[in-house]
């Protein structure tokens, strides 16, 4: 089984996969409609890598994270950890020891009735780590995120600032010494100065411990400055992926191009000439036929509403985009590309 699961390495020079998802789909039933929150996503996350998953809210990036952690029932596809399927009791147990997650809202992420000590110890209890190790590991985890254990162990969340809460959440994620940490908008609710502190803590851990990170964010500039690779999602699918430099400096997919131009630049009077996307992200119960971006696309042409493009190479070192502009064969052939043939329920 595991042989078939091995993903084809995008870049031969790249490291080994920590996790990989293959053709992953998640559907939500909404009355009579089916929302395709994730619609055939394939992605590799390498050891020690900082991977950015960017997109607008509703594009499925948080669903992807939850599905990767087995918190979300999937409608198809596979999630692997070190090449082994991460399902079933054993697979999930392994996954939960090696991969941790932190969440966006520092006010929701901690139980208001637990002290910092209990919050950070919790993973050790759940994972049945020997009691004698608890104190030492909790103190070390707090130290790793720059908090003095003696001062903070006995505090309640309401006695902490937003940044401190997020640090506690990170400490609780680190106490099991995971190999990967999925961060769902970890700093979007924090102030600028606190934000860069939290990011510095995460990056320091990444370098010192070779901790792999996934940053789920709507903030392209953040992904640009921190990530090794970036995957751009639109309406439940990855439309472009590659190294941060490739994706941001020479975006290929019209959606990525639009996202990049939309980012405000903190230099006086950034982009006067920007061309903005019209309209809004459609909801995932009504995925447009053909390329899902075509109704909003400034560069759409004739076959775009008929042919659903697949990710194809558009550059070196694994730069891929799912756009017919770069796939003349598919654009002419008019046949739905393999692997993306639409098998799921009727949209709309």
């Amino acid at each position, binding site marked *: 089984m595991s042989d078939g699961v091995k993903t084809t390495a995008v870049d031969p020079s790249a490291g080994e996969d920590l996790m990989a998802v293959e053709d992953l789909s998640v559907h939500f039933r909404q009355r009579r409609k089916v929302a395709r929150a994730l619609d055939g996503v394939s992605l590799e996350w390498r050891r020690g890598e900082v991977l950015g998953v960017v997109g607008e809210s509703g594009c499925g990036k948080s669903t992807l994270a939850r599905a990767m952690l087995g918190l979300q029932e999937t409608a198809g596809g596979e999630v692997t950890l070190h090449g082994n399927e991460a399902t079933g009791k054993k697979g999930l147990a392994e996954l939960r020891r090696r991969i941790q997650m932190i*969440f966006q809202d520092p006010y*929701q992420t901690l139980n208001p*009735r637990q002290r910092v000590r209990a919050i950070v110890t919790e*993973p050790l209890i759940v994972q049945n780590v020997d009691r004698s190790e608890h104190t030492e590991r909790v103190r070390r985890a707090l130290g790793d995120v720059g908090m003095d254990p003696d001062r903070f162990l006995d505090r309640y969340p309401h006695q902490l600032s937003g940044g401190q809460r997020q640090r506690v959440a990170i400490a609780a994620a680190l106490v099991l010494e995971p190999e990967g940490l999925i961060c769902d908008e970890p700093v979007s609710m924090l102030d600028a100065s606190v934000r860069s502190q939290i990011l510095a803590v995460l990056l320091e851990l990444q370098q010192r411990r070779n901790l792999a990170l996934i940053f789920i964010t709507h903030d392209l500039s953040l992904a640009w400055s921190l990530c090794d690779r970036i995957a751009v999602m639109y309406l439940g699918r990855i439309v472009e992926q590659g190294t941060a430099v490739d994706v941001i400096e020479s975006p290929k997919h019209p959606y990525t191009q639009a996202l990049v131009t939309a980012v405000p630049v903190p230099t006086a009077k950034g982009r006067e000439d920007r061309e903005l996307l019209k309209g809004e992200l459609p909801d995932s119960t009504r995925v447009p036929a053909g390329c899902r971006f075509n109704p909003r696309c400034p560069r759409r042409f004739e076959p775009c509403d008929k042919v659903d493009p697949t990710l194809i190479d558009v550059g070196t070192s694994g730069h891929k985009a799912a756009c017919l502009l770069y796939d003349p064969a598919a654009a002419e052939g008019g046949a739905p590309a393999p692997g993306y043939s639409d098998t799921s329920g009727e949209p709309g």
Partner: protein
Amino acid sequence: MRESGALKLLTDTWRGRFGVAVILVAVFVSIFGTLIAPYEPEASSLDVLQPPSLDHWLGTTESGADVFSQLLVGTRVSVLVGFAAAIISAVLGSMVGIASGYFGGWTDRILDALENWFLVIPTLPLMIVLARLLDPSLIVLIAVIGFTSWAGTGRIVRAQVLTLRERSFVERARALGAGDGYIIRTHILPNTLPLIFASTVLIIAVAILSEAALAFLGLGDPTRISWGTMLQNAFDSGAPSAGAWWYVIPPGLCITLLVLAVSLLGFLYEEYINPRLRRES
């Protein structure tokens, strides 16, 4: 910090002081009532329906027993039924509420329907029917009142659990591989307890009233004196029309005072956990 806030509400408001005082007295009397009572509460004598005097502070009953002694001894049943029934109702309500809120799906639909059923049927007639069917005794009374009054608590708990379930610390625990039992114990229950407590305090009041009502209708434990049975006896013997106010007013007043005290504390606690209800004093 928070704890001292709760104490402050108890000691600094007249409602808090009154509630605490009445309940302390009631609990004391319910424990030591039989010892302080000047007479054997059911000893009959020839002094039938005597008004209050130095010998009988609150007069005598139709069989010549001492009203004051009956009042003291009767406290125990009211307090016992109130607290025990409320505890049953709290346990039932929180179990149902947590199960239906946390597990959702079919569990929720079935438990929710049950809850609605108990919420809409008039409780007193149901209690009367149940108490009639079973042999009247203290245990039956407690059980009947407890089983018919949990639905409100269940409702409140379910709503709270529904919001808790979405909080990311619950999701985080799940991502760690924590089981349902663990999550309910460490995350759901501690964050629901204040609400359970608040609604239970108010149920104590309802239970005390219900006991009095059932006893007044003759469905109380016939072997024990309670404020409700006193009222029943008083009315059966025509005490009100005979002008024997000392036989009717004391048990009625005691019921009112205790229910008022418990309710006040319940409201105070609700204000404490939900500061939006707090008015500037």
